[in-house]
């Protein structure tokens, strides 16, 4: 009986192997069948139904505008894409255009391996400088050897964007006569008022850890210079994490915790649970990214708004934000011109319109005559993104700085908030991770 089962399993494995071989063989078919037609192979990771239909629409319209061009789309989840792309980009029949994740471990490694096309010529040809601010472009830039992040040539263009700020409950604000604060001083005074009313000022849960980085770094972004945050994130010019500003940001966060501004028992509450509490009206505000927008627009009777963490009075401040996974071109693609045109289409006003309709923040400006509802919560996040993108105030997810930075920050923030360490200890412990990485890099 046992061996019978095993033969069955072996038979199934054999069938699956044959089936997968057959599947691998198909991509070469169309190009061989009709030589007059051009085929553009595109790999993307927009697998969720809404995203996927946006991509389908864009591809259909691109094909319609380019007779004889056929787009062969392959959709993968991000993990799959990241695992299979490196090898595929070295193949002659690999994707012409593919989404390549940002950061040293992904795009950096591929630039280093010499499989991505630098886009400098097309930046000039299509004037992409007008579409994105330099700070956005540098997220998709590397030196030719792939070692310096944030400088050198552009290797990808991102269609979508994210910004971290403050979601607030409009109903709670209205019934108490509170207004959206214009300065950080007003924001802190507001926290005090809300607490005095017996309402949780900031809905927060640090059990999952990673989102605590956003709470800390939102305050940090108000205190440090743009050069500093760029240097820190891109690992250049030997900056330290152990600075008075970072200690101060940690102190403010700790003070908020001690004053009871966060959800009661927040160390034991997960990210989704804290969002659900906020969504159900428990908590006046929450600090997180624009990706929560769609979630807050459905399944609740509360009205929500969004504002950027306000700067200290008389100052301007950056906000944490960034652009989504960019599209890149394979260096050995036989259709570089067509691929570049496709990239330009991915970041066109039409694409912006479609992403906005789907409730996702487009990285580029919407057309002037847009039909998308730019009022309400989505409009708030859109305005916030446009403000920081236009004024070159897009900050960084600092956990990009080193491969271990996110985990170190998470653990050290939990220790800080748990009363195990002081703000000075916190900055010193994170600096230890950072300087070890810089030392490793300079080897």
């Amino acid at each position, binding site marked *: 009986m*046992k061996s019978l089962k095993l033969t069955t399993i072996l038979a199934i494995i054999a069938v699956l192997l044959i089936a997968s071989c057959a599947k691998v063989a198909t991509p070469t078919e169309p190009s061989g069948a009709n030589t007059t037609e051009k085929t553009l192979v595109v790999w993307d990771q927009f697998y969720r139904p809404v995203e996927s239909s946006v991509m389908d629409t864009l591809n259909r319209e691109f094909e319609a505008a380019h007779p004889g061009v056929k787009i062969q789309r392959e959709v993968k989840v991000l993990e799959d894409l990241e695992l299979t792309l490196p090898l595929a980009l070295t193949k002659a029949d690999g994707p012409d255009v593919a989404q390549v994740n940002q950061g040293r*471990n992904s795009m950096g490694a591929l630039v280093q*391996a010499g499989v991505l096309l630098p886009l400098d010529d097309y930046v000039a040809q299509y004037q992409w400088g007008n579409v994105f601010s330099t700070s956005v472009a540098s997220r998709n830039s590397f030196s030719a050897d792939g070692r310096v992040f944030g400088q050198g040539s552009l290797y990808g263009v991102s269609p979508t964007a994210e910004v971290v700020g403050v979601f607030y409950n409009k109903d709670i604000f209205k019934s108490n006569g509170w207004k959206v604060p214009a300065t950080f001083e007003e924001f802190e005074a507001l926290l005090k008022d809300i607490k005095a009313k017996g309402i949780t000022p900031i809905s927060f849960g640090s*059990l999952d850890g990673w989102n605590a980085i956003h709470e800390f770094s939102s305050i940090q972004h108000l205190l440090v210079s743009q050069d500093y945050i760029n240097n820190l994130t891109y690992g250049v010019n030997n900056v330290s994490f152990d600075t008075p500003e970072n200690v101060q940001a940690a102190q403010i966060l700790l003070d908020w915790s001690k004053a009871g501004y966060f959800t009661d*028992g927040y160390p*034991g509450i997960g990210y989704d649970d804290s969002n659900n509490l906020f969504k159900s009206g428990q908590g006046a505000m929450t600090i997180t990214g624009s990706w929560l927008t769609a979630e807050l627009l459905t399944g609740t009777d509360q009205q929500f708004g969004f504002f950027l963490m306000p700067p200290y009075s008389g100052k301007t401040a950056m906000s944490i934000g960034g652009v989504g996974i960019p599209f890149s071109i394979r260096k050995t693609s036989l259709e570089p011109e067509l691929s570049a045109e496709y990239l330009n289409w991915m970041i066109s006003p039409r694409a912006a319109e479609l992403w906005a309709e789907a409730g996702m923040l487009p990285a580029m400006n919407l057309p002037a005559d847009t039909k998308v509802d730019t009022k309400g919560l989505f409009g708030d996040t859109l305005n916030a993104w446009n403000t920081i993108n236009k004024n070159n105030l897009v900050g960084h997810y600092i956990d990009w700085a080193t491969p271990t930075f996110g985990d170190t920050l*998470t653990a050290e923030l939990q220790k800080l908030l748990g009363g195990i360490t002081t703000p000075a200890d916190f900055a010193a412990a994170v600096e230890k991770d950072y300087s070890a990485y810089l030392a490793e890099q300079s080897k």
Partner: protein
Amino acid sequence: MRLPGLFISSMRRNRAYPGEHAWKGWPYLLPAFLVYFVFTFLPILETIRTSLFDWDGISPTRQFVGLQNYTRLIADSQFLTAFFHNLVFIIFYCIIPILVGLLLASLLTRRKIKGFTFFRTVLFIPQVISMVVVGVVWRWIFNPTFGPLNVLLRAIGLQIWAKAWLGDFTWALPAVGSIGTWVQYGFCMILFLAGMQRISEEYYEASSLDGANAFQQFIHITIPGLRPEIGVALITTIIAALRVFDLVFTTTRGGPGDSTLVTGFLIYRSAFLQKDMGYASAIATILTVVILAISLLIRRFSSDSKGEPA
């Protein structure tokens, strides 16, 4: 004590039936061996090989670094912390479940209880639920705002005991550990129930005629009789404690700070989040060696005086 089943098996060990060649059995093993070889043995070899390289898991090239990953490991305070937590988990995954399992099994067998099957099934249920579901459910039970545990504590006037269980530096490890206890005791209980049914009733009758009480019977008849089962329970639960990953992943992700970090989670984090495949493989290799060593040790102790395996 020599049990009939073991006696027969020792007589038949390593011997073919008369007139039959021993090699005839081997081809029958081939399909199973092939699957084992491809899906278990090769990956283990590959893990050991990877542990000698510096590799991000993506790049086509990787650099040979010899035993450098292992020397890093010994000096890594996080690894030592994680391994210490695994040892603490042995208390929750192994010792407490075996004690609770023994207690429940003897309660259920020594006296005829109405609804025996019902109790046995209900007590065993935690063991059959997927660990991810267990983690999600307990995360909810431990939730400080709306979790039933804190709600109950407040309701009975013990609000000072209500806390952010999974986010508390003192309580997170015992809280996650006690979920492990909840999952494991059912397995021990079923194992011991089966074992107890095999112990001859005559021993109990004879000893009670000699005036032994229930506790003495438990110590001198039940426990020695369950030796093989206790051996199996020890091995499986200790392995579970050493390789725990899913429960930590779904509840605390090693937090707060490093207070619930275990080696299994450290392997995942190094390999897939920090893209340090060589280092992760080194941890995995060490963990495998430790588990093998402990399993062999327990097998030795739980076998009887003549060295028969349990």
